[in-house]
């Protein structure tokens, strides 16, 4: 390690360390104070556990039993059966797993695309215009319409659903990132790092990136929710994951055809979607209150008023 690089490292360390230490208790304090955020976290945790344990707590979601088609919910089938006699409970539980996989993968993909694009656009003025115009162009399409169109080209599969929704949400992440990078670029510590000889790459990755993450993390919970919703909508329309894959949207799509005979085909996956999105929204709101200092001020002000 060169002396200069070591010097930047020394400057860098205490900042990261003290930030960590100050943040940890605030987390717990906010969770304890805001029961509603805790409720969101619990909802999300339950869905995660259900999704993770899907093969253990539910049977095979693809076994058909045509003799038992459209059976009412009861002892044998807790949530009833669908039009080819598949167990709706198994399909809903495995659907949770699919929704979580799609949500997490879309968050990763849109973060990878959005953060890369946003940091480059914010850091290099020459790249700002080309990158952001493309992002603006992608954002000029309504999310679901662009996702439908991309699915038309990519063809129905789980991976393609992830790619399509990831492409749709990357520009939204990029916009947030670019905004904070533009501010961070002018800070004294970035100037200091540069004066000490840090390369562009290390300034971007080690100094700018960690500091622009908190608004992005807040976005993450909302992108996750949007991804779950969009997947459900795409599958409901018949252009998402293939029909044999257990997905909440697919169950709803069948349910629409048997609304009169088998309302449980709509009610159970519908409730699953609602609880998931509700949990993510509650948790996301709490996260935003925690990470956004402006709103945090409002919050304490509100508490004083009440």
């Amino acid at each position, binding site marked *: 390690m060169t002396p200069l690089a070591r010097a930047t490292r020394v400057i860098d360390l205490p900042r990261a360390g003290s930030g960590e230490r100050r943040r940890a208790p605030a987390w717990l304090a906010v969770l304890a104070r805001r029961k509603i955020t805790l409720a969101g976290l619990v909802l999300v945790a339950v869905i995660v556990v259900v999704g993770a344990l899907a093969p253990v707590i539910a049977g095979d979601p693809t076994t058909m039993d045509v003799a038992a088609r459209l059976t009412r919910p009861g002892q044998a089938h807790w949530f009833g059966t669908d039009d080819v006699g598949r167990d709706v409970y198994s399909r809903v539980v495995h659907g949770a797993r699919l929704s979580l996989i799609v949500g997490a993968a879309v968050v990763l993909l849109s973060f990878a695309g959005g953060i890369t694009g946003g940091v480059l656009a914010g850091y290099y003025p020459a790249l700002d215009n080309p990158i952001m*115009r*493309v992002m*603006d*162009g*992608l954002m*000029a*399409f*309504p*999310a*679901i*319409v*662009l996702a*439908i*169109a*991309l*699915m*038309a*080209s*990519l*063809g129905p599969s789980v991976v393609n659903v992830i790619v399509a929704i990831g492409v749709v949400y990357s520009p939204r992440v990029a916009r947030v990132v670019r905004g904070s990078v533009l501010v961070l670029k002018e800070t004294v510590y970035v100037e200091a790092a540069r004066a000490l000889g840090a390369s562009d790459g290390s300034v971007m990755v080690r100094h700018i990136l960690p500091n622009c993450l908190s608004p992005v993390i807040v976005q993450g919970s909302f992108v996750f929710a949007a991804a779950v*919703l969009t997947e*459900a*909508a795409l599958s*409901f*329309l*018949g*252009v998402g994951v293939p029909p044999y894959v257990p997905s909440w949207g697919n169950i*709803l799509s069948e*349910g*629409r055809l048997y*609304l*009169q005979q088998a*309302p449980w085909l*709509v009610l159970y996956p*519908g409730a699953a*979607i*609602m609880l998931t*999105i*509700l949990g993510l*929204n*509650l948790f996301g709101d709490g996260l935003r209150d925690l990470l956004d200092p402006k709103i945090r001020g*409002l919050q304490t*002000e*509100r508490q004083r*008023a*009440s």
Partner: protein
Amino acid sequence: MIPVALVVATVAFVLIHLAPGDPASIIAGPDASADDVKKIERQLGLDQPLPVQLVHWYGRLAQGDLGHSIFLRKPVTEAIVDRVEPTLLLTVFATLISVVIGVPAGVLSARHRNSVADQAFMALALVGISIPNFLLGLLFVLVFGVWLGWFPVAGYSPLEDGLVKTARSLVMPALALGLVQSALIARIARSSMLDVLQEPFIVAGRAKGLGERVVVYKHALRNALIPTITIIGISFAILISGAVVVETVFNIPGLGRLIVSAVLRRDYPVIQGVVLCVAAVYMLANLAVDLSYLVIDPRVKYR
């Protein structure tokens, strides 16, 4: 606006080339003969080099020509015009519902902050933003269509058959779309109202003895409307894409059904046309929002 429009046009162009493999044979389907593939290739101009295709594409778009549908056997613009009425009516209807419910709910919540009504509104709004519009639509069909029989379960009655019939056929889809959106509008209206109510000029107004009504509705509301107008414009844009999904629930023959059936038949010119058309409406809605600031907010001046 213009660079964005160029990118939008390019993205729509790229759609047809994103598919793995040769687009013409994908469109023709697995059982097509080599002749059919050639025919489609020629019809769509896919036999020319990419840059040439792109320039042709821009040229045609500039003339308002979206090409020919492969399956409907008519120009794409005609197919879109045939289907645009229900989608537009549904979107406008839903926007009205969302504003009429959302703005007053948000303003009242902010004015009576932490009251029972505020908490009830906000709890409802939270549930509202967690329900996807197509799910709410399905639940409406189940409750009001199937169980209670108050409204037609599905279908659309065009304007020429009478306004009342059209309205009746759109009540449930518009409510499904509008209620979900009103939850979002109420949340934004409430928080922007709360922000404004903390401003010094509100304190000054109260200090000089203005009534609470004048403070809230004359001074605060006007300022709080600025972010709210933004969200109404965005709502229109969100709702037109929501309409695309909800149409499937209610079997309404609008743009949404058009694009979904085009996807299932791999009718790319129609997909591209609908995507461009919806994006254009979306961009115009956003432009309208920007221009409306000129009227509402005297501080904003565009040069």
